[in-house]
């Protein structure tokens, strides 16, 4: 219990320590007196020989463990004071550290989540999808299969452990005015066992649910439950009217279960009768299999080929002339290859960022160590032990590392949140949850913190080498210390600048490309247009006349509403232009096949989008009601297939319409008008020949509406929904939204994301390069304080000193700039596919980047240069 007593009797211990040391001095004094020395002189000698009483007392105290806490607190207080004295250093170092840690963790977390760990499914490494490849075109013919094919594939259990399929289905949830359209999936037995994900609430679909005659049930996706049903747990067990069938909700799936991107899943046993919904009357199922361990994807594909050959005889329309089956690992299809490559490049850059961040911190710490050499030499001479100095530096390093680490964690968190927020839909699997990767964060923290401690202790290493006098003499001169390190530091700066130039150049190309994309003339006006897909119950809407019985009253009602100028039916949404078809033109003979796009629309389509009519006219309401075979063509069609001859009154044939379930027997259409070109294959692709025909000619194909409003189109969505419901309660709007939003989602979202990511990198690169240049220049000028003082004393003007420092900085900057520009030009080839409307060697971007970097770089040099001129020559010289 000695330690406890000591802890409670600190006053006593303190007194005893005092008397122990005093006893020594008194004894010593007495022995001098005994030698005949006068008492005063004897005491003086004794005290001198003893040394600093307070120092030894302190050292004695330090040996006692119960004082360790006080010592730590004192060290930290002192360290805090030191850092506060040099605030600029502290801020820059903490920021550089945090940036390295935060940026690398954030980016790598996203890459890891999106690429390496996108699924929460059981054994997802062995999941594969099946594709039919067209060997002539070298592309995917289809990735969906007929049920017969699926059943045949499923029998190959020497290749696959198990196989499941899903059939997408628009589901109208009827609830009066609040009717909703949900995206559903029919799933085959064993689907939930296959994925092995436990439900969030209730239960998943069980084998009994797939039996013929079982009570109809369904399960819901977590996200739909949260967003569309207010996360109401009491919904469980309730019955929903879905596509006219009463189904009971039995479970909410786990947040990361999103198979097929569906919002609800319904069981579908093999015995149930087929429902024909797709417009050509066939059901195509998505198929996923778990490949047996040890079976290669090539082996599996080879076996499936034999089955596919057999089916190609039964369903010749579903197979290209030359084909092969392909089995692809699940992970490969999740992220589009282009985006995937970008992510790989990013993750490589991330490692580099962390390294550069650490190099910056190291440079800063070394710069500080140099300016403090004298301080340490003095303290060492005054009796501070090496242990003392190390402990104090440790405390300083700890404070820096701690602050940098905390800020780094915050940066990482904010970065992950930002990226997750700007990540457009459909670029990554919907199962993916973007969240911080703990292991990566820890790794980055460890690397960063080690750097701080390693370089933070540098001054103590120097002090402890014992060259005390040398240190005292040399500090402030330009020649002492580790000159060898200068080369390495300069290389780091040059590399940073080069990397930064490359990043900035890439970013500016993306910006230019994005701007160019937004400036593309669409040829149509997308503002004030509300759009929605309208999936109609196929059993009641089979023919054009039936469609017209729904759309005609709806369009008339809508047009009569205040705030609505035009309302039109359409089969696709601009700027994507319709159904592809082979076309024939009367009187024109040609050997190669001619293709064009066609749209099934009502008479207001052209006015809704304000496409200028160049010749003739557009069709009338009567022509639409009578399903007359008349057509409006675009300029490209006129130019390409009529070759300057007048086209009005000529006839064109849309062969595809002959093959529709509700076929047009003789699909010849009379041309009545020509309209200006408008984008019909997205923004980047050239415009295709296009034809508009009355939507009433067939009952097949997907339908939607376009409404031109006089005010905010989004505000009209409720009104339109109500009118739709009033016209037919079994129809609900799918994906209602403004045309501008649609355009944004499908056209600008991906380039904007690329822009964001590259922009973030470029900003980071610029910051890091700035800090890098600053820290190295600060270090160099700190070393030369003495020299500058001397120069000023000898009559050099402040301007000359600044010029010298800037000149040195400029050399590093220029070298980095040249290397960076050369590598940018070499690398920009790689991103050509991501760019549009801008050359990968865009001179404006080159010049802009060079100017920006020089400006920022010189600014970073200017700060330490200014400080160098402010050196008082007397102070600098007194360092001698």
């Amino acid at each position, binding site marked *: 219990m000695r330690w406890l007593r000591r802890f409670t009797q600190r006053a006593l211990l303190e007194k005893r320590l005092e*008397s122990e040391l005093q*006893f*020594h001095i008194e004894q*010593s004094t007495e022995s001098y007196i005994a030698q005949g020395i006068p008492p005063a002189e004897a005491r003086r000698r004794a005290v001198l020989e003893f*040394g600093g009483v307070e120092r*030894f007392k302190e050292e004695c105290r*330090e*040996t006692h463990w119960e004082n360790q806490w006080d010592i730590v607190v004192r060290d930290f207080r002192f360290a805090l004071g030191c850092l506060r004295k040099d605030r600029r250093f502290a801020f820059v170092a903490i920021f550089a550290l945090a940036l390295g840690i935060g940026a690398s963790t954030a980016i790598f977390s996203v890459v890891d989540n999106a690429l390496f760990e996108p699924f929460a499914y059981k054994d997802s490494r062995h999941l594969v999808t099946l594709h039919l490849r067209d060997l002539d075109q070298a592309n995917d013919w289809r990735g969906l299969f007929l049920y017969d094919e699926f059943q045949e594939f499923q029998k190959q259990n020497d290749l696959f452990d198990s196989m499941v399929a899903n059939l997408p289905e628009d589901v109208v949830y009827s609830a009066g005015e609040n009717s909703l359209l949900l995206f559903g999936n029919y799933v085959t037995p064993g689907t939930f066992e296959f994925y092995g994900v436990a439900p969030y609430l209730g239960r998943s679909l069980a084998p009994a649910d797939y039996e013929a005659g079982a009570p109809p049930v369904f399960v819901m996706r977590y996200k739909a439950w949260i967003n569309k049903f207010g996360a109401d747990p009491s919904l469980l067990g309730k019955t929903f009217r879905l596509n006219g069938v009463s189904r009971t909700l039995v479970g909410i799936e786990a947040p990361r279960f999103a198979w097929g991107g569906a919002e609800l899943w319904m069981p579908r046993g093999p015995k149930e009768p087929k429902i024909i919904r797709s417009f050509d009357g066939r059901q195509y199922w998505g198929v996923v299999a778990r490949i047996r361990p040890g079976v290669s994807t090539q082996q599996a594909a080879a076996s499936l080929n034999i089955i596919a050959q057999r089916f190609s005889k039964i369903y010749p329309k579903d197979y290209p002339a030359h084909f092969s089956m392909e089995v692809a690992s699940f992970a490969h299809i999740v992220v589009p290859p282009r985006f995937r490559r970008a992510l790989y490049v990013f993750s490589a850059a991330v490692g580099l960022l962390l390294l550069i961040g650490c190099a910056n911190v190291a440079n800063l710490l070394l710069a500080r160590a140099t300016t403090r050499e004298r301080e340490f030499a003095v303290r060492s001479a005054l009796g501070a032990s090496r242990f003392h100095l190390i402990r104090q530096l440790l405390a300083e390093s700890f404070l820096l590392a701690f602050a940098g680490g905390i800020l780094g964690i915050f940066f990482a968190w904010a970065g992950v949140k930002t990226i997750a927020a700007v990540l457009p839909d459909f670029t990554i699997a919907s199962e993916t949850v973007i969240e911080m990767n703990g292991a990566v964060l820890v790794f980055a923290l460890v690397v960063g913190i080690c750097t701080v401690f390693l370089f933070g202790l540098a001054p103590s290493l120097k002090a402890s080498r014992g060259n005390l006098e040398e240190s005292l003499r040399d500090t402030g001169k330009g020649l002492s210390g580790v000159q060898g390190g200068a080369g390495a530091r300069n290389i780091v700066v040059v590399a940073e600048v080069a990397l930064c130039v490359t990043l900035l150049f890439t970013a500016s190309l993306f910006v230019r490309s994005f701007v160019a994309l937004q400036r593309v003339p669409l040829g149509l006006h997308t503002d004030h247009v509300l759009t929605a897909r309208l999936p109609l119950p196929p059993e009641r809407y089979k023919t054009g006349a039936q469609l017209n019985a729904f759309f005609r009253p709806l369009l008339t009602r809508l047009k009569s509403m205040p705030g609505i100028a035009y309302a039109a039916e359409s089969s696709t949404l601009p700027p994507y232009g319709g159904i592809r078809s082979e076309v024939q033109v009367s009187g024109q003979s040609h050997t190669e096949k001619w293709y064009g796009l066609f749209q099934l629309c009502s008479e207001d389509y052209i006015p809704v989008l304000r496409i200028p009519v160049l010749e003739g006219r557009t069709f009338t309401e009567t022509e639409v009601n009578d399903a007359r075979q008349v057509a409006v063509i675009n300029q490209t069609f006129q130019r390409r297939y009529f070759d300057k001859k007048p086209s009005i009154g000529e006839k064109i044939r849309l062969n595809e319409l002959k093959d529709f379930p509700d076929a047009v027997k003789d699909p010849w259409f009379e041309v009545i008008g020509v309209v200006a070109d408008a984008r019909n294959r997205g923004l980047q692709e050239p415009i295709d020949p296009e034809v508009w025909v009355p939507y009433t000619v067939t009952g097949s194909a997907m339908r939607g509406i376009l409404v031109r409003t006089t005010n905010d189109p989004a505000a009209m969505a409720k009104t339109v929904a109500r009118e739709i419901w009033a016209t037919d309660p079994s129809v609900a709007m799918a994906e209602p939204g403004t045309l501008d939003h649609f355009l944004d989602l499908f056209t600008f979202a991906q380039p904007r994301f690329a822009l964001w990511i590259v922009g973030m990198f470029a900003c980071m690169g610029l910051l890091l390069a700035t800090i890098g240049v600053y820290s190295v220049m600060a270090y160099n000028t700190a070393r030369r304080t003495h020299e500058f003082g001397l120069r000023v004393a000898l009559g050099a003007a402040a301007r000359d000193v600044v010029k010298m420092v800037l000149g040195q900085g400029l050399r590093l900057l220029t070298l980095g700039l040249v290397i960076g520009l050369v590598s940018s030009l070499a690398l920009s080839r790689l991103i050509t596919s991501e760019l549009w409307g801008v050359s990968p060697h865009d001179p404006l971007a080159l010049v802009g980047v060079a100017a920006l970097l020089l400006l920022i770089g010189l600014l970073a040099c200017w700060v330490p240069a200014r400080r160098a001129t402010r050196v008082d020559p007397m102070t600098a010289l007194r360092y001698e």
Partner: protein
Amino acid sequence: MAQEKSEFLKGTLDMLILKVVAAGPIHGYAISQRIQQVSKDFFQVPQGSLYPALHRLEERDWLEAEWRDTATGREAKFYKLTRKGRTQLESEVLHWEKLTDAVALILRTAE
């Protein structure tokens, strides 16, 4: 070359103290006198630096201390060796002898 000597001392001071204390309970002043006297003033260090060492050895349980009166009737802190301290001393002496033997051998035969 003050630095070198003090470095040299740090390694051996502990052993010297243990050796001196081994002779019987003794206070700090006497220890310092004894070391100086025996070493013929070879170790020129501030006398005070003895005390942190004493406290450190006490903390390690190699020494134990007791306050009692000296011959002149004054109260002083007397140190004496513990069993642990004695073992430590023996091993250090052994180690030291081996080292000096080796060095001496090299010095004699390396010519």
